[in-house]
């Protein structure tokens, strides 16, 4: 059982028997007032998003999902193919159901596929993945305006901002929970 103070982006809960994932979360507390936990929740089956506000003391059941360790294989159009690490059975997940996770899928990545009533409805990623920068501007050595991050594209097509010293072709670690650059992978 979760309480309102456990709420955070990515938490999966049961609402009206359906699994929902928290997609946005904001803690607010008007002067001397109650703590309010304002959330956007996405129904993991229908994909519809709802707004809900919770208060201190509210409780939730975790979403009843089965997690199966699988490996990402390849994609064809909107279909992403995964292979069960135990049974070698292959399954397909649609792009819509993957949501932001598609930004981090590189061949052979180990993920947890989330099953609800025997149907794959999404994946859980490792917190950090390494992806190669395929496009970014050159860094001019000695440039003193280096405080600002620059735009870059990684091998999955995902675009993010990275520090100026990272060059095209280098491997970087991305935090999949925030979608942000974490570190450069040396070597």
């Amino acid at each position, binding site marked *: 059982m979760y309480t309102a103070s456990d709420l955070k982006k990515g938490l999966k809960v049961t609402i009206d028997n359906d699994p929902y994932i928290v997609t946005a979360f904001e*803690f607010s507390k008007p002067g001397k*007032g*109650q703590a309010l936990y304002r959330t956007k929740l996405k129904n993991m089956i229908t994909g519809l998003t709802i707004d809900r506000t919770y208060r201190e003391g509210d409780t939730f059941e975790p979403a009843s999902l089965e997690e199966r360790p699988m490996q990402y294989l390849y994609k064809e159009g909107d279909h992403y193919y995964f292979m069960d690490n135990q049974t070698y059975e292959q399954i397909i997940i649609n792009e819509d159901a993957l949501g932001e996770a598609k930004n981090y899928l590189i061949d052979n990545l180990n993920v947890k596929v989330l099953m609800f009533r025997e149907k794959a409805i999404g994946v859980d990623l490792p917190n950090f993945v390494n992806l190669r920068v395929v496009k970014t501007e050159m860094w001019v050595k000695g440039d003193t305006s280096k405080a600002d991050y620059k735009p870059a594209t990684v091998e999955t097509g995902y675009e993010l901002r990275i520090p100026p010293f990272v060059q095209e072709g280098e491997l970087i670690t991305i935090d999949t929970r925030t979608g942000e650059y974490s570190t450069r992978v040396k070597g």
Partner: protein
Amino acid sequence: MARRKLALEQRARIIQKIRAFFSKEGYLEVETPFRIPAPAPESHINAVLSGQWYLHTSPELCMKRMLAAGYEKIFQICRCWREGERGSQHIPEFTLLEWYRAGSDYLSLMDECENLIQTLAADIGMGEKIIYQGHDIFLTSPWERMTVKEAFQRFTKISAKEALQQNLFDEVMVRDIEPGLGIKKPTFLYDYPSERRSLARLKKEDPAVAERFELYLGGLEIANAYSELIDAEEQRKVFESEMETRRLLGKEIYPMPEKFLTEMEEMPASAGIALGVDRLVMVLLDEKRIDEVVAFTPEEL
């Protein structure tokens, strides 16, 4: 942390300027203990345990005891702790500026607030206008003053009274009212329903409201102020009712701050205010997240 260097340098400057302001205005800087045996009982503010005692959630009670003891103009800048408060505008260990003035009331505190923030903005080279999250906020006097009743009329379809009855007051405040406050000019939201009086005195002409205000800049709540309640009997009742709410919510019950209640008998008519220093720095530096104006967040420790 490295990328916050500029913000932390500015923060230090702002705090120096706050001290300079109060010293020039004839206030005495005081330091009261962080660890206390009995925090002010408030329904929705939870103290962090420290041994058998608590870390203060604000220096309010101790500073009022100093007022009662004859210190007439005092200020303090200190760390405070509130359990479980974490979000883009909250951090469980934060910095408060509190100041108290004998013989004053909440209306004159509004003027003093204006003066303080105008001075700080000028001191750090901001001039008459600050830009916060895309809003041009003009600091020139007079600032906007809006009663809670007016705010509900202007921004919502229900009255403050109905919202309280339906337990929607906080929700409506956060969702419909706060984002519209302090947008073109800073806003003093004042005259709170008596149910939300906390440690404020009720208005003589209209006891349905308390002499309390909150200051908003760019939708962000910056400060909370009262014409202080100085009737110990009445204060005890308020504390008991807050304690009862805590009990109903299944929260920890704090010991009654008896020494404060006793010494309160000696407290002169006065006004007091707590201003969130981290939030003020956020507004002056146009930062959206409180994380950007502190050296460490709890997650980084």
